[in-house]
């Protein structure tokens, strides 16, 4: 079960023609897919696409009613390959993933798919994880579209445009026998807006119908000589068809006056940013009326030569607003204009930065500079003389006064004790080379743990330690999560290590979910899932591959055991990979699951024990060694109201979920006796209550007896 439930929201997917839909971008995309008569959908979670997968999963009943098949793919490669169903059958299919990382993984399938081409519309929805909030390397999906000759849609970031792009995408795909990529940026995925819905359509052919009437066409299979034919077909048939379709359907839009001294060519995704900058310069209104001509590329690949040359004709200068690098679009436009003998000055990167997100201030500065250079009379007076010091107000400089707040492990996270244990091992056996991986466990690289040297891709942790398979006094440690393990770590990590007799340690962090992407179920999830097969232990898979030194730890919070197992793995004589599977449920998901159950049980009068931890403030000496082995949000510090104490003491706040890490760490690391665990027993049994009050009576008597013999001070 995913971290966020869309059970309520998905009801909107049923609305019919003329009704208004309100909600997030991802939900709108799902609705659009159903309106287009999609036959199957597949994908792999990962922000900003995670919620799309969650929505689809929560909407599975609705989709089933319509005859739409949903596949929660094992990886983006698996999802990409799913589109093979559209090669020979006139069935529309859509897949989704986080890009560019997911596109990297899927690119083998996409390249093959694009070579042979498709009969049914094939839509690849990529969540472009670029700019603020992104968790991956900063690259562009654009390059993938170019190299495989896949058309790329980049609609304006408003729900009507995105919904239209889905439908345009399917039609374009079918008209050109080419897969189409639909790029949505992080914020478009999560933008709340509205659009007028259409009726949902059943697919023209269901998957069952296709399966029962198999088709094949050797010409569509990527093998010589067909593969050579495919390349020719791409440029001679599909490309011209795409140009024709995009032109005739007017997929790209023109805003503002027909002519002008200057013009702007922007990616659809940049449109709102451009308009806001123009609004702030007084050159546009809120509803899209612009005083500067804008050519908006809802299709960013291929570009339409005629439209671009025509737009630039007669203009002094044209600015391309294209986020990210390389500047594929600007280069292509430059090539087109040069060959067409264009005279407009082409600019873009230069006024705008080559790399990085085009935020409000960046866009405003870039457009202002462009206009100041080429048409200053458009600008308001103050912008023509921008360096007047009176125009600016100096604000206090808070540099170094606001702490960095990078992401980290949640309160009660079961991965925290694993790294606390690793820290303790480091103290005994020295610093080791640690290959990290993608997943929440990658937070180990940040304070307070500072563990992990590289991350090479989802599930590639162990593979990225391969070169260290040499005789040495230390062994490499590779970490990967259960998500990464099933994504590809099973083969590229463990299989690879067994085959090559790698002598390192492989630590698999099993938290019952693909937790970092939002808590989706995977093969080893412990939950009963009505629609998927779960509860396949990782250890069995690992042993099946031939690993012989395998340890399962069922409670990661047992820091002592964790430490000892790691120590054993690093020191044993055993040859070959040492695999440790450390399992405990993701606390975020556990709390979401357990909290309502507990509340209901308490209400129903059942006996419930709720643990939490505390710190005795007069025992704590304020060294914070415990925090350096934790970093838990609920374990904080507080300044005591006592001038004798220089340093703040540790304190645990009410958000503590009683995971036990604090106590275990204090015990294993021999820290200090200031931690205590306080369990509240709700609805205790009568005998229990009697015993407790009898004990409290005796303890109270002993306490009073001692206090009578000494001075007691006001606290």
């Amino acid at each position, binding site marked *: 079960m995913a971290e966020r439930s869309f059970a309520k929201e998905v009801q909107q997917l049923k609305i019919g023609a003329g009704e208004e839909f309100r909600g997030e971008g991802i939900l709108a995309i799902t609705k659009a897919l159903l309106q287009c008569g999609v036959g199957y959908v597949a994908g792999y979670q990962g*922000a*900003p696409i995670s919620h799309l997968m969650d929505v689809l999963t929560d909407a599975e009943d609705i989709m089933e009613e319509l005859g739409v098949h949903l596949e929660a793919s094992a990886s983006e490669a698996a999802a990409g390959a799913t589109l093979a169903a559209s090669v020979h059958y006139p069935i529309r299919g859509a897949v989704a993933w986080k890009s560019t990382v997911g596109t990297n993984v899927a690119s083998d399938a996409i390249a093959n798919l694009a070579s042979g081409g498709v009969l049914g519309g094939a839509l690849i929805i990529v969540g472009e994880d670029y700019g603020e*909030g992104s968790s991956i390397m900063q690259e562009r999906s654009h390059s993938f579209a170019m190299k495989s000759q896949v058309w790329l849609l980049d609609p304006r*970031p408003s729900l*009507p445009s995105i919904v239209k792009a889905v439908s345009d995408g399917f039609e374009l795909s079918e008209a050109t026998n080419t897969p189409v990529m639909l790029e949505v940026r992080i*914020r478009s995925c*999560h*933008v709340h807006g509205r659009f007028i819905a259409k009726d949902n359509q059943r697919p023209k052919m269901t998957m069952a119908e296709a399966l029962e009437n198999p088709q094949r066409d050797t010409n569509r299979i990527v093998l010589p000589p067909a593969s050579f034919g495919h390349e020719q077909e791409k440029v001679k048939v599909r490309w011209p068809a795409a140009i024709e379709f995009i032109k005739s359907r007017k997929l790209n839009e023109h805003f503002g006056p027909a002519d002008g001294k200057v013009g702007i060519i922007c990616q659809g995704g940049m449109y709102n940013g451009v308009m806001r900058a123009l609004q*702030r310069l007084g*050159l546009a209104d*809120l*509803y899209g009326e612009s*005083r500067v001509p804008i050519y908006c590329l809802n299709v960013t690949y291929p570009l339409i030569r005629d439209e671009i040359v025509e737009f630039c004709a007669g203009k002094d200068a044209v600015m391309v607003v294209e986020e990210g690098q390389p500047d594929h679009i600007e280069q292509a436009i430059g090539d087109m204009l040069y060959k067409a003998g264009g005279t407009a000055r082409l600019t873009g990167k230069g006024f705008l930065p080559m790399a990085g997100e085009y935020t*409000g201030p960046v866009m*405003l500065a870039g457009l202002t500079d462009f206009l100041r250079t080429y048409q200053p009379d458009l600008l308001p007076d103050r912008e023509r003389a921008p360096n007047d010091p009176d125009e600016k*107000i*100096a*604000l*206090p400089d808070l540099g170094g*006064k*606001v702490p960095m*707040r*990078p992401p*980290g492990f*949640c309160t009660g996270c079961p991965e925290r004790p694993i790294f606390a244990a690793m820290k303790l091992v480091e103290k005994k056996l020295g610093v080791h080379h640690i290959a990290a991986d993608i997943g929440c466990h990658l937070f180990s690289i940040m304070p307070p743990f500072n563990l992990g040297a590289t991350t090479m891709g989802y599930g590639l942790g162990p593979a990225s330690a391969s070169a260290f398979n040499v005789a040495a006094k230390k062994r490499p440690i590779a970490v990967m999560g259960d998500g990464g393990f099933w994504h590809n770590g099973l083969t590229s990590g463990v299989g690879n290590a067994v085959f090559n007799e790698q002598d390192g340690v492989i630590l698999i962090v099993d938290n019952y979910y693909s937790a970092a*992407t939002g808590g989706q179920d995977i093969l080893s999830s412990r939950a009963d899932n009505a629609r998927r097969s779960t509860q396949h232990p990782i250890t069995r898979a690992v042993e099946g591959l031939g690993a012989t030194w395998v340890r399962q730890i069922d409670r990661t919070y047992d820091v002592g055991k964790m430490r000892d197992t790691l120590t054993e793995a690093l020191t044993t004589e055993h040859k070959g990979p040492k695999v440790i599977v450390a399992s405990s449920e993701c606390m975020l998901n556990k709390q979401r699951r357990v909290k309502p159950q507990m509340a209901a049980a308490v209400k129903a009068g059942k006996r419930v024990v709720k643990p939490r931890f505390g710190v005795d403030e007069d025992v704590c*000496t304020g*060294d*914070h*060694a415990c925090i350096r082995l934790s*970093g838990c*949000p609920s374990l*904080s510090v507080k300044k005591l109201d*006592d*001038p*004798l104490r220089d*340093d*703040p003491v540790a304190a645990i706040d*009410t958000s503590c979920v009683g995971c036990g890490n*604090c106590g275990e760490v204090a*015990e294993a690391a*021999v*820290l200090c*006796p200031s*931690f*205590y*665990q*306080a*369990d509240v027993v709700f609805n*205790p049994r009568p005998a229990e*209550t009697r015993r*407790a009050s009898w*004990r409290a009576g005796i303890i109270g008597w002993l*306490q009073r007896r*001692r*206090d009578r013999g*000494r*001075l*007691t*001070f006001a606290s």
Partner: protein
Amino acid sequence: MNVHSAMPSPSGADGGGIIKLAILAVGGQGGGVVTSWIVDLAEQAGYYAQSTSVPGVAQRTGATIYYVEMLPATDRTPILSLMPAAGDVDIVLAAELMEAGRAIQRGFVTPDRTTLITSSHRAFAVSEKAAPGSGILETAPILDAARQAAARFLAADLDTLAVQNGSVISASLFGALAGSEALPFPREAFEATIRRGGKGIAASLRAFAAGYEAVRADAAVPAPAPVAAEPGRIVDGPPAQRQAFGALVKRIEALPSPAQEMARRGLQKVVDYQDVRYGGEYLDRVAAVAALDDGSGTLAEAAAKYIANAMAYDDVIRVADLKTRARRTERVRREVGVREGEILTVTEYMHPRGEEICGLMPARLGAYVERRPKLFGIVDRLVNRGHRVRTDRLRGFAMLYVLAALRPARRRLLRHRVEVAHLEAWLGHVHRLAPTEPALAAEVLKCRRLVKGYSDTHARGEAKFDKVLSALPLLEGRPDGADWLRRLREAALVDEMGSALDGALKTVASLDAPPLKERTA
């Protein structure tokens, strides 16, 4: 930082009327809930609203930002921005004080238009918590900046208000937004939105009301930290001890006045730690150092503070004593929030080592065992593991109660001998230096701050203490000696392994030879 303050407030051709609202929160604080409430509120009031956020793993417990734009709906679809821009935000909601600072840093708060509403509570970042000393950043610069940068600045401890009302900060933050009247919607509309949400409505409404009132009651600044309680007030005790304690308190009046307050606290601490006689010993030691004070009181005050801390060293008896007190039982019940009909069980996490057990032995016996590795090994193996003691049960409580009963015998135990020797050596430096270099002597006193914790932590602290004082021969006689010692101490508190300290020590070692004594005199 400079911002374009004169940027058109939503002017443009006819761009007026958009309200731009940014919410800065820490992942897990419920910024998404507030955002969806605001959208619902606006849409119910006939507005067109657009919100965006950046969910994903990148925000787990980290700083996050949500953004809403709204304007009265018409038959045309407005084109709105998907992210806030510096100098172009009307309302900033910050769910934590430093996040308000971040909003200011990013230029979202400008004096021409921004209403800044923040919770004044602090949720410390890992970097602030992990320092061996105090890494907590100051709130004053943030509050000052907020007052300067915002057109209106409203702050209240919205987190505490939410917790007090059994809810979470999203509700009290939403209440504060309503109370600010920065949005053109009445209170009832806000409350209706919460009711439509459907979960924990009653508690949310209570927290909402508290937030609403809080920003209206005090539209200025959060209250300063409470003033420290008056020390030395005896609640109870045997008359003879009370009398003797009274006599000790009188002796404090002979100390330089800046040191008196600290001495009263120190006295209370050591008497509470051991007994009234120990208080007398404490005052003897403080008075001996205070006699060398140059009149400023600096040395005397440092003595009053650090001698008390040194004499109230942390040992097994102290821990057992603190954990078996009636007041501690009350405090735990209060913090955990145990209610009528519920039972509290308390488990202590302890990990004694052989050293602690030897420390509990009579001095000669303890030293004997410690000198014999085999014997010590046996003792260590017997105890050196994690012990979980249930102090709500009689057996666990009795064990600690009996250990605490060793208090009267403490002076005869090995640990006490060791501590006293350490204390005397340290005070020896102070007495030697005070007549000629009082500032350096005061700094030596303050180095006691480095010795803290238990077991390994204590050993590491003591090692750092020794390391810092090892620089004394190089620093004595230097006019900037006190300054250097302070720097060394501060370096020692920066990181656990003492790498900053090692660096600082190298610098000290490379200082020029001390100048002639005459120049410092």
